[in-house]
């Protein structure tokens, strides 16, 4: 053999070696579904509301938008129009004694409390936003940019989907309705000729009650369309089904898996001074004597360390002449809402000298009402899913899993812990961008399982967590 031939042998593998590894094991497909045009029906959760406001990047990170992008790999037309807000600070609506007040989103920042202690926590992006500007953001119509694929509207209950003129009452719909005074929200779906829909409604029918500490009404299960949950739900879903026969439906998570209700401890009153303990016990002696005299089990006692808050409870069984004594210490399984003013707790005597107002507490009775309604709604939702052969995401089960054991995706730990749990935004109810991506993957799995499709899952790690200063 000649030396030259040997060099050819040596060079041969160089040619083979030019091939790099390549994997193509996943081919997206639509299965038996048609994802050509996707419409998302829902409330604030579907709208991409987060940290207490609707704002551009939150809307863009909404799970429905993420799903639409992934559906584009499996036959979707790639069009998913969102009625984007013109502000990144966002607009949220809060009710005050003087009427509606518009707020910006919450961000993590430093604030100084009544004890002059500086700490990191949720603060408004802008504490004093110009109300006129805010109303302009909210009221300026974007209807001419439609029709929209994301027709979710913050704050709506099921009956609102069918209510003519909703746009006059709910500016989040008014801003993209063609004729706010007459249009029906659910009819927006037909405008994009949908082939596939997502339908996640009903949360506010129970959340309105729960987030108001039981002061606002809960939607009754029975009753005619526009009154009862069942009839309204069926009617609204049927209208969507007339437009598209395929879709995914989600149910309603229980309040006990959401940080809005699970963050402030019931025993947040910390007493360190024995004199304070003695003074409080003395102050509540007449109360304890009154309860004893009436044969009622309520007693208020204080000790060093952590103590349950004193709360108003309008349902306490006291004779009418003692109505001013309808307060008691909160029980371990009762819930204090995230919105309770911390300064009032720390410095205003709330929970000790002054009972905590009803609007910041869910009592045992109220929690039971919430659970009963949630269970009833979820049964109706599941029945409708089965009757119409739709894909189904058990968000309730998913959130319970997050709350009890956590969920991990792409190395991110999701828990229901406020701020550090990665899932919930700073309002304690709506999701972070990462949380939306995680939920979008669960929606995708539910769809793929039902329709034998292969919508690719999204990288949860591509989406940002809460912003820290």
């Amino acid at each position, binding site marked *: *053999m000649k*030396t030259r031939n*040997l060099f050819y*042998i*040596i060079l041969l*593998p*160089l040619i*083979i*070696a030019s*091939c*790099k*590894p*390549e*994997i*193509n*094991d*996943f*081919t*997206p497909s639509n299965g038996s579904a048609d994802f050509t045009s996707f419409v998302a029906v829902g409330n604030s959760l579907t709208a991409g509301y987060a940290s207490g406001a609707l704002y551009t990047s939150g809307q863009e990170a909404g799970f429905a938008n993420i799903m639409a992008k992934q559906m584009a*790999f499996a036959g979707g037309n790639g069009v998913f129009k969102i009625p984007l807000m013109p502000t990144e600070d966002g607009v949220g609506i809060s009710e005050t004694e003087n009427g509606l007040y518009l707020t910006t989103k919450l961000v*993590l920042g430093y604030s100084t409390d009544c004890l002059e202690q500086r700490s*990191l926590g949720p603060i408004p992006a802008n504490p004093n936003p110009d109300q006129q500007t805010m109303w302009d953001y909210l009221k300026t119509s974007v209807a001419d940019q439609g029709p929209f694929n994301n027709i979710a509207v913050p704050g709506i209950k099921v009956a609102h989907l069918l209510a003519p003129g909703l746009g006059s009452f709910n500016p989040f719909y008014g801003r993209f309705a063609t004729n706010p005074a007459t249009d029906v929200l659910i009819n927006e779906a037909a405008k994009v000729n949908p082939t596939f829909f997502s339908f996640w409604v009903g949360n506010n029918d129970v959340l309105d009650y729960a987030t108001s500490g039981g002061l606002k009404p809960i939607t009754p299960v029975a009753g005619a369309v526009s009154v009862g949950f069942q009839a309204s739900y069926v009617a609204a879903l049927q209208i969507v089904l007339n437009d598209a026969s395929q879709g995914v439906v989600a149910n309603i998570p229980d309040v006990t898996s959401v940080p809005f209700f699970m963050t402030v401890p019931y025993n947040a009153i910390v007493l360190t001074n024995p004199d304070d303990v003695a003074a409080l016990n003395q102050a509540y002696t007449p109360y304890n004597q009154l309860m004893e005299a009436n044969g009622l089990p309520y007693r208020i006692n204080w000790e060093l360390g952590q103590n349950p808050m004193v709360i108003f409870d309008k349902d306490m069984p006291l004779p009418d002449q003692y109505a001013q004594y309808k307060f008691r210490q909160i029980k371990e399984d009762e819930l204090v809402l995230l919105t309770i003013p911390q300064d009032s707790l720390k410095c205003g005597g709330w929970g000790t000298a002054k009972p905590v107002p009803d609007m910041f507490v869910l009592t045992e009775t109220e929690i039971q009402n919430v659970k009963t309604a949630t269970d009833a709604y979820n049964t109706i939702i599941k029945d409708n899913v089965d009757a119409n052969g739709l894909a189904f995401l058990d968000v309730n089960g998913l959130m319970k899993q997050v709350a009890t054991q956590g*969920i*991990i*995706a*792409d*190395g*991110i730990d999701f828990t229901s812990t406020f701020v550090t749990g*990665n899932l919930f935004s700073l309002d304690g109810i709506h999701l972070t961008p*990462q949380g939306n991506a995680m939920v979008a993957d669960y929606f995708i*799995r539910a769809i*793929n399982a039902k329709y034998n499709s*292969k919508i*690719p*899952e*999204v*990288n949860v*790690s*591509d989406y*940002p*967590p*809460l*912003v*820290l*200063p």
Partner: protein
Amino acid sequence: MKKIIFFVMAVFISTTMFAGGYQVRLQGNKQTGFGLIGTPTIYGSSSIFYNPGSLSFMKKKWDFDVGASVILSDIAFQKSESNYQAETDNKASTPFYVYGAYKISDLITIGLGVYTPYGSSATWNNDWAGKFLIQKISLSAIYIQPTISFNINDKLGIGAGFVYTIGSVKMRKALNYSGDSYVELDGKANSIGFNAGIFWQPVDILKIGLNYRSAIKMSVKDGDATFHIPSALQGTIPVNNKFDAELPLPANLDFGVAVNVTDKLMLAFELDWVMWNVYDTLNFSFKEQGALLNSANPRLYKDSFIPRLGIQYDINKTIIVRGGVYYDPTPTNADYFSPETVSLNNIAYTLGLSIMPVEGLSIDISWLQLFGQKAEKNYSPDNFGGTYQSTAIVPGLGISYSF
């Protein structure tokens, strides 16, 4: 001279992930061309690594051997249930060796070897889907081994060496805080071990070798941990912290047989038992805020057995050609497969050429191509998985001189 050695080390220190786990057996270009078989062969001073027992069979008084390989590797990844793909952007890495041996008498030969049998490096994009597991890693270990070998009679040799190891680890992974947070870990570890072997040539045409290299625990003490995190967290997580970690370099038991079928043709078979079982968990413990930062990362490796075949043909007095194949199964656990060490079932072939222009001088060229078999893997603690595939090409060059 000292300066030069350190320069050489700095250049060659990092070796790309390419063999089972983070082992790299490119410690002699003659052996590399021969399917990485070196236990039952007489290849001069490079036997310091492969089998100190055969060192005393070297023919001349002095023997020197230096060389290096260039590992060009690529890893492809496709995420589970997704069309997302990622690829590493690995820099070429260069394991090297330097050996010198002196035959004191017919009975005793001594030698010194410096080589790099373990190393791993992978560079993923900083924003890839697995960024919270790993963004970049490089491990390396340089072994320094003084060795003594006894030629008990002309059929049997035994040898042993003491091993001093200089190791380093550098890694970077993203942290799930805003502003593209990440942590960089940079640590060094020195440790000791040994390498011992027996070489038996019962008849001229048959050579048998058995070699054991001990496990070595690389313990990083007070490595630097640098956290790039939002200022809000810097009160809780110290930006500059120290960490301890321990990485085991597994023991090897290699057994090989070589047969001279004709004067010119040699065939060999080797089986290497790599005791990866020792790599159970990768623990990091931090000096400050340990309760918050410490982590135990299960790896659950299992032992692997690598069969190798080699063929060598002497074309004439100045040219020898070699070839080899081997199968290197992954020691990883399919549920604890981290993208920091993408070790798949590897099939490889090797080619080699030695040119001896003058008596005692050999120029050794080797070529290795490795095909990591596509497989779906998951790292369950982080719920991150997908299909991995890898390839590597490894050209190598060495020069040995004996006199």
